[in-house]
């Protein structure tokens, strides 16, 4: 009996998280276009509905109704499934993110997350490392030179920045003493980790920007050199999946930054969920601001930043954190 109730609760949670994430992704498209417009002293979309608020609906309908073109000589099966990988990865990561404090209904406490894995952080890194397949295989399967170049770049970039993404979280794990995201939030009851780990935060932030192919690091897409890179040949719904994946991953990375460094749902006065949403939106908004500000880096600059600056900085940071922790505890 209780087994069934638990299952139903789980299903409801999954449905809510999915719905909210898709809604956020659609909203993010509008927020990005509007904010980017204002940052570049223009209006952004303002034709569909009042203030252009219905633009996501129009975009979605357009992408749904467009012809689904498969290029000649494409590897059809891989071509069909590669965009799904990109969209699936952030959705899977969202499963381990704690959104709020426990929900209390009478005596029972329902944790507001889908799965509290004791290796939650490793699960995030494992799943995030798979998004490279969507990029690499999508471009390879398209049978196009631009796509191929985009996916080769994407593969190299994502591997390089995955390292610093993972290593920048090691100090967080050291401070929290657990891989579980719930424990990490609980460990920040007194102060958020950004205060003690600013370097870690910065590295995680830059690496996540690179992992989500956002602007200073958007070499795999590079509209003006590679005509869209790995998704050059995609159209209609499959292109929409790539698009959706990128925006969901922006939101999910925002949620993860909130969990790892900003204290998750903790905060005064406002309810926990409101705090979580505010903290989650900081990262995407900053990503958009960055897109309006910084030009694309050159490929060798990208590799230098990843391997010669961020990675050694990560290692030094880990050693320093370990040393200080040892001093404080003894």
């Amino acid at each position, binding site marked *: 009996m209780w087994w069934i109730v638990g299952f139903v609760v789980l299903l409801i949670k999954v449905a809510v998280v999915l719905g909210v994430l898709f809604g956020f992704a659609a909203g993010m498209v509008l927020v990005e276009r509007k904010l980017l417009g204002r940052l570049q002293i223009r209006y952004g979309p303002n034709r569909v509905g009042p203030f252009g608020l219905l633009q996501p609906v129009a975009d979605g309908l357009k992408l749904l109704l467009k012809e689904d073109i498969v290029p000649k000589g494409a*590897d059809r099966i*891989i071509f069909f499934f590669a965009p799904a990988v990109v969209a699936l990865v952030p959705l899977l990561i969202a499963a381990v993110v704690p959104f709020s404090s426990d929900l209390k209904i009478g005596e029972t406490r329902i944790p507001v997350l889908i799965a509290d*894995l*004791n*290796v939650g952080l*490793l*699960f995030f*890194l*494992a*799943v*995030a*490392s*798979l998004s*490279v*397949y969507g990029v*690499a*295989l999508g471009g*390879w399967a398209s049978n196009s030179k631009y796509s*191929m170049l985009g*996916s*080769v770049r994407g*593969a*190299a970039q*994502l*591997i390089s920045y*995955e390292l610093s993404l*993972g290593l920048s979280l090691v100090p967080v794990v050291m401070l929290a*003493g*657990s*891989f579980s995201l719930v424990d990490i939030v609980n460990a920040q009851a007194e102060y958020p980790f950004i205060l003690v780990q600013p370097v870690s935060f910065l590295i995680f932030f830059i690496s996540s920007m690179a992992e989500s192919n956002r602007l200073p690091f958007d070499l795999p897409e590079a509209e003006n050199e590679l005509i869209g890179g790995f998704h050059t040949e995609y159209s209609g719904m499959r292109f929409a999946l790539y698009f959706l994946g990128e925006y969901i991953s922006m939101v999910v990375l925002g949620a993860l930054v909130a969990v790892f460094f900003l204290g998750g749902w903790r905060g005064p006065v406002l309810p926990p969920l409101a705090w979580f949403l505010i903290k989650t939106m900081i990262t995407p908004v900053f990503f958009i601001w960055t897109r309006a500000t910084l030009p694309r880096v050159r490929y060798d600059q990208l590799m230098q930043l990843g391997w010669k600056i961020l990675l050694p900085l990560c290692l030094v940071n880990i050693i320093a954190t370990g040393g200080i922790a040892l001093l404080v505890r003894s």
Partner: protein
Amino acid sequence: MTALRMVFYLLAILIVASTAMAITRKNLVHAVLYLVQSFFATAALFYLLGAPVLAALEIIIYAGAIMVLFLFIIMTLIGGYTGSRNHRQWIFPSLLGLASIVSAGVLLFSSPASETGLIAATASPASFGRYLFDKYWLPIEIVSLLLFVALVGALYLGTHKGKSVAQIEVEQ
């Protein structure tokens, strides 16, 4: 047959089948993908046997990094397709495979521990780490030294016999 056993055998079949597909594909990218699938099943197997950390590491390192490097090299150098295969090249690998299956079988049936059934258990990340770094710290340090040597070697090769790229450009 318990549910645990059923899942175990399903995963085992999946691993063997996808690995077999991987070694018989002519298209190298397909082969890599089948191998990735096999790694996924292996990770699930680790999780089933109560080693979530190992499962996560299996995916991060093998599926997420090493196979991507394979893919990268295939895409940049070969382009995904190999020519026709020579049947004689199967002989040595199949002999090797047979030998490893036989030795694994002998080890399995000669050990008294092989009689015990599957038990659901978990090693928490903390206890796993403590066990590893308390008991096996020396092998781990040796392995890390090995990786360090490899890193230095790669760095040396990358700088064109000890000269940096900038130096070479200046000389040219």
